[in-house]
């Protein structure tokens, strides 16, 4: 009964165990932060990979899958499939509307030509649109400098709703020369395709001003997409162009997508890539052959029905494709324009397989980080061991007293093991709290580190001067310790203050998490529950292990020597 009383009392009445608790907490927080960010990063990669590509993808680049519509129908008829979206993808140059004058900027883009309705059913595309009506719920999440606040006032929510509607059909109605409204193809750009969109400190995006009529806010501007279709009968390929009205911009959060991808109507993509339906002519006579080359799509994105795993769906899709191919050939009675055999250019992949080159290195990195940072458990054990060794040394006489009143060796050992357990538990809980606090606010912390507020620099500077003055005052009698302590604190605070001013006034702000490098525009801020629990358990185990040696040493103390211990 004495062990809980003493271990509790030792914990509360001393500073050293609090240092041990703080050390364990820092170790736990460090591991939780690193692994949570890595896990969050991996999860974002996986989510984005699955969200943006569907569960299973049939792809046949450049030449495309002929008659894909009937394949899509077959696939959609499967109970395991909830939606299918055909698309044509390719790379091109996008002539931007900026800057003023004739020398316009060009951006290299990946275009995805889609049917917006089916594409939305597979990828939730409309949910990624950035320029949407500002609802009360959205308004609460917007930063003070978010451009959508300005838009709500300047053009109103009705106009913003029109942008969403137009994005849903990738089309806008514009008057022709006669004044009649005619449809024009629209495009939705990734939010970072336009280099006029600048990321703000609060994470929002704001177009730069400079255009003669205001800012370079992309919707309503016209862009021209140019590409070189590789599928051509001509000796030298000719560039294809399409004028597109920007109807909205999207933000997936995956920076490399938002920076390069644009969404255009499927028929425009088929046209510029030469994948549209074409009546074939005899190359010798120049007469129509009566055959029509069917429309093609380079990819079919397939979303599984709820509860169906991509791995389970893939073989079903493969079987459906094979059946479709056989039916296609049988119907036409020849293999002209037949869909290709699987495995020869045409592949069926799960989203994970398609993204494997990207996901697997990230998974390996996470495990590497987890392993490396797990070494911190040894630091925890070492810290607890060192601190407990000092505590046991200091408590030698108490141990002698306890033995004199009948405490067993096991009882003495148990006091310190329990003490180590308590330190581990408290440190793990405090570490979880600290880790959660940092992970949850990691983007704000990142922002503050990259653009630290000036008041913080002033505050740190004043604190540094205050520390120096107090140190000088306390050591006026010649004492060295206050001078060393105060001087160290003053130097540390002064260094931080100097860092703040340097970042603000010399560098002009730094970007630690570069979205161009880390793919995502924000740092993952979700705690990894598995990492939290395993780290906490590890910290407790290693705290107890660290306490084990001093505890055993305490149990072995000769009570007679202990009672004589000065």
């Amino acid at each position, binding site marked *: 009964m*004495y062990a809980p009383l003493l271990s509790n009392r030792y914990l509360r009445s001393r500073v050293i165990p609090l240092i041990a608790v703080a050390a364990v907490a820092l170790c736990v927080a460090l591991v939780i932060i690193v692994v949570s960010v890595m896990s969050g990063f991996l999860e974002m990669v996986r989510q984005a990979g699955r969200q943006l590509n569907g569960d299973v993808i049939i792809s046949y680049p450049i030449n495309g899958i002929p008659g894909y519509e009937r394949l899509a129908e077959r696939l959609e008829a499967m109970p395991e499939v909830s939606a299918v979206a055909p698309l044509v993808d390719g790379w091109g140059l996008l002539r931007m509307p900026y800057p003023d004058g004739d020398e316009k900027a060009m951006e290299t883009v990946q275009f995805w030509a889609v049917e917006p309705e089916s594409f939305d059913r597979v990828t939730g595309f409309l949910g990624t649109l950035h320029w949407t009506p500002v609802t009360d719920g959205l308004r609460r999440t917007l930063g003070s400098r978010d451009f959508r606040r300005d838009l709500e006032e300047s053009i109103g929510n009705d106009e913003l709703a029109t942008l969403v509607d137009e994005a849903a059909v990738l089309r806008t109605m514009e008057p022709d020369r006669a004044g009649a409204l005619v449809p024009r193809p629209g495009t939705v750009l990734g939010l970072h395709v336009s280099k006029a969109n600048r990321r703000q400190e609060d994470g929002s995006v704001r177009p730069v001003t400079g255009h003669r009529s205001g800012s370079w806010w992309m919707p309503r501007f016209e862009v021209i997409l140019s590409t070189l279709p590789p599928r051509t009968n001509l000796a030298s390929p000719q560039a294809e162009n399409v004028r597109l009205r920007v109807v909205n911009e999207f933000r997936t959060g995956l920076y490399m997508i938002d920076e390069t991808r644009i969404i255009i109507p499927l028929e425009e993509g088929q046209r510029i890539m030469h994948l549209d339906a074409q009546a074939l002519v005899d190359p010798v006579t120049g007469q129509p052959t009566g055959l029509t080359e069917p429309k093609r799509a380079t990819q079919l994105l397939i979303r599984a029905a709820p509860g169906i795993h991509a791995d389970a769906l893939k073989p079903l899709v493969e079987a459906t494709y094979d059946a479709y191919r056989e039916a296609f050939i049988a119907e036409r009675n020849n293999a002209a324009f037949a869909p290709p055999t699987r495995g020869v250019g045409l592949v069926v992949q799960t989203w994970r397989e398609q993204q494997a080159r990207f996901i697997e290195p990230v998974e390996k990195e996470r495990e590497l980080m987890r392993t490396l940072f797990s070494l911190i458990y040894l630091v925890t054990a070492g810290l607890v061991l060192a601190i407990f060794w000092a505590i046991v040394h200091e408590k030698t006489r108490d141990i002698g007293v306890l033995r004199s*009143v*009948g405490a067993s060796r096991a009882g003495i050992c148990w006091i310190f093991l329990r003490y180590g357990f308590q330190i581990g538990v408290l440190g793990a809980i405090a570490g979880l709290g600290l880790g959660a606090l940092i992970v949850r606010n990691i983007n704000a912390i990142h922002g503050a580190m990259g653009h630290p507020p000036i008041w913080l620099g002033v505050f740190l500077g004043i604190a540094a001067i205050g520390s120096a003055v107090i140190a000088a005052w306390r050591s006026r009698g010649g004492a060295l310790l206050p001078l060393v302590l105060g001087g160290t604190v003053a130097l540390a605070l002064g260094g931080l203050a100097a860092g703040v001013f340097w970042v603000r006034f010399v560098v002009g702000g730094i970007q630690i998490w570069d979205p161009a490098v880390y793919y995502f525009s924000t740092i993952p801020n979700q705690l990894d529950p598995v990492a939290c629990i395993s780290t906490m358990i590890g910290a407790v185990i290693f705290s107890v292990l660290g306490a084990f040696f001093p505890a055993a040493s305490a149990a072995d103390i000769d009570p007679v020597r202990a009672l004589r211990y000065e």
Partner: protein
Amino acid sequence: MNEPLLEARDLHKTYRLGRVDVPVLHGASLRVVAGEWVAVLGASGSGKSTLLHLLGNLDQPDRGGGTIHFRGRPLDALVRWEGDRYRNRSVGFVFQFYHLLPELTVLENAMLPALVGVTRLRWWRERAAIMRRAQDTLESFGLGHRLRHRPSELSGGERQRVAIARALANSPPVLLADEPTGNLDARTGAGILDLLADRHRAGLTIVMVTHDLTIAARADRVVHLVDGRVDEASASAVS
């Protein structure tokens, strides 16, 4: 002749300091009958404290270096948990420097042997009685107003009274006191001896080591420890 409560026969004890063997006791014998107050008088370094530690089973004689019997049972026959139980129930130690645990209150220090001797279940069942007993003892020692205080807030005399209360927590038949007044002024020391005398009158057996003849004179019997042996010739019944 009364059967001895505690009997040491031909005790030998040698300590090793570095490479040197230092014999402390060589052939010390002592018989203590129930209800007796024996003072062991000796010069500094004569082995008084060592004798007390052996009697209290805090230490063991050299191999083949004599035996100690408590109520006729040899202490060296006790297994480890029995030895712990002997220290917890059968003897109470009082030290010159009090040796109170600084993190515990006066009441908790006084309850310490009781806390060591009970399981958690028994503690919850008997804690009221245990606390009452420790509190009564402390109140009878004039420390009723100090129950929640820490040892650092007490005077030397108060600390030693708490140490005696602790030694008596489990009502052991034998109290082993090692220079109990050695760190106190004469007046306070006399108060402590009065307190021990009260308990002795109530039937407590006391073995007290001291180097002070006037303090030893309070005991029923004084034995001299000279060169690691009890000098039987000098043994004298005081009362």
